[in-house]
């Protein structure tokens, strides 16, 4: 009986168009934010931060980006890892070459550069569709992999090919301990998630979805296909770029190009399929889910007295992800986010089943 919208009349279109039209959802979101920003920092352990919270937030950001391109605009990309790399290496080069630049500006530039590269690789999307485009994005992935491994200037002639950054500060505040890093990342991700949500419920978002659902019909209502697709590529890659920079600077701290290889692209795609295509919330759920499965496999079976070899764990991971992808595509293409929604609907009607 708690989750009821009875008595909540939407008096205006503004209220009806709010992100969370139902009061309970607003409350839930507020609670979630308070927990994330206050309760977590008071209680979380180092492990929780570095193994789960920080990586899932950062990857959720990239997943939101990919979801904009694939889930909302219908253009499959297998190159997200490459765009993350562009962000990471742009940030790195700015950092070592213009050390006085504010970290936020560095992140912005990382996103902007990734957006630019994304747009360039998005150009074929005008003429090709679906899986043809997937192949073009693979071109981006492999080419970018190569660039960051073979162009020495980009990795500052580091003999090992791996690069790193020292402790970071923003406006003089340290972003060093896990708590500090977590809070900084949380702020950025929350803000960017809000922006993404705004975009997808505005006319840009409707144009993206129109292209996704039926591109020819989109054209007759005046949507310019190339511009629209490229805007999705730009926004998507911007998110990937910022996420890549965060991943490198605040999660890995030192890294090499392999951190952004094709496996990263695959796992991001899996996040949005399992989390929910065309759902911002789903991007978060998917990212957390994909990160938790290996942790679960590493810890739970041994705790139950079934020790698994590392090889077995990695194979199991492959099989579980593969099976889940198929499962969700068949049963619920809108992923875990949709299941969550269905749960809520049920709750809303409870205890009357209809």
């Amino acid at each position, binding site marked *: 009986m708690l989750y009821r919208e009875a008595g909540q009349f939407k008096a*205006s*279109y*503004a209220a009806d*168009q709010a992100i969370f039209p139902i009061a309970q959802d607003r409350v839930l979101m507020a609670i979630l934010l308070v927990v994330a920003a206050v309760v977590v920092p008071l209680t979380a352990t180092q492990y929780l931060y570095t193994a789960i919270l920080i990586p899932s937030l950062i990857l959720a950001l990239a997943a939101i980006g990919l979801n904009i391109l694939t889930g909302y605009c219908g253009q499959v990309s297998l190159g997200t890892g490459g765009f993350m790399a562009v962000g990471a290496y742009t940030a790195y080069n700015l950092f070592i070459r213009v050390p006085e630049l504010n970290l936020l500006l560095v992140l912005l530039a990382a996103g902007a550069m990734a957006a630019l590269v994304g747009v360039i690789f998005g150009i074929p999307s005008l003429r090709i569709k679906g899986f043809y485009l997937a192949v073009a994005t693979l071109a981006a992935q492999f080419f970018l992999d190569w660039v960051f491994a073979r162009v020495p200037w980009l990795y500052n002639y580091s003999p090992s090919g791996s690069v790193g950054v020292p402790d970071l500060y923003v406006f003089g505040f340290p972003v060093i301990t896990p708590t500090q890093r977590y809070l900084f990342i949380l702020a950025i991700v929350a803000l960017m998630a809000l*922006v993404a949500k*705004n*975009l997808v*419920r*505005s*006319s*840009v978002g*409707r*144009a993206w*979805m*129109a292209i*996704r*659902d*039926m591109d*020819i*019909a*989109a*054209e*007759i*209502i*005046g*949507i*310019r*296909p190339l511009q629209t697709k490229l*805007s999705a590529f730009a926004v998507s890659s911007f998110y990937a770029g910022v996420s890549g920079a965060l991943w490198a600077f605040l999660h890995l701290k030192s890294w090499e190009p392999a951190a952004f290889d094709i496996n990263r692209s695959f796992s991001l795609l899996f996040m949005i399929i399992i989390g929910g295509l*065309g759902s911002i919330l789903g991007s978060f759920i998917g990212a957390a889910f994909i990160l938790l499965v290996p942790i679960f496999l590493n810890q739970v079976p041994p705790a139950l007295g079934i020790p698994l070899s590392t090889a077995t764990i990695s194979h199991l991971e492959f099989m579980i992800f593969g099976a889940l992808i198929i499962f969700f595509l068949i049963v619920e293409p809108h992923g875990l986010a949709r299941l969550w929604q269905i749960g809520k609907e049920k709750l809303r009607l409870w205890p009357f089943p209809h």
Partner: protein
Amino acid sequence: MTQQSGRKIGGPLLKVQGISLSFGGVKALSDVSFEIRQHEILAIIGPNGAGKSSMLNVINGFYHPQSGTVTYKGATRKQMQPHEAAEQGIARTFQNIALFKGMSTLDNIMSGRLLKMKVNFFLQALYWGPAQREEIAHREVVERIIDFLEIQAIRKTPVGKLPYGLQKRVELGRALAAEPDLLLLDEPMAGMNVEEKEDMCRFVLDVNEEFGTTIALIEHDMGVVMDISDRVVVLDYGRKIADGVPDEVRANKDVIDAYLGVSH
């Protein structure tokens, strides 16, 4: 035949001249010319495969004819892109519904107003001030269309889940949202029962009368055609075989032959 009042049929809004279109060996249209006049309802009829849909596709820039020209609002061009046609005020519906299946009725119709929404990307990203005001202003227009088409109850339903007849209505709504000068309807009543057909006829007539929208529609149901159209163009095997007011066309021998020669 009902004679509509309160609107005056004017000069040609659109003229197609000598249009020929073929796909590989198939000649879809050969040397077709006719005009659509301001504020009229023009019906395009003809047996299956006559080239009716192809004609609409030429008009709104989907197909590019091998020869011939399209003159619209005084400007003559050999071809244009569909989005250019939309910018020029041409809207349409499709024979096989072409809605955005994953979006709600509301969003589908809202998307019809995309060209009228001007707020820039960054304000949309913030969903603030002008962006929010614009959304609401357009929402109000869209709500009027929803009321007009009597589809209030399915506002939030994803259109993929709607029955066929309602989908056709939503598609009309999306086209209307663009406030077009020329509305192209490809078999808007196909597959509907009598009641749905009557509703659709009423919508078409109301749009024409209230907003003065020029309408070209393809329809197989002769009763409907004779009832609502001001003029009729008949195509057969890609050629125009007749063009005139309904009564004339009905009496035309070529038309009778074409219809008798083809089984339906």
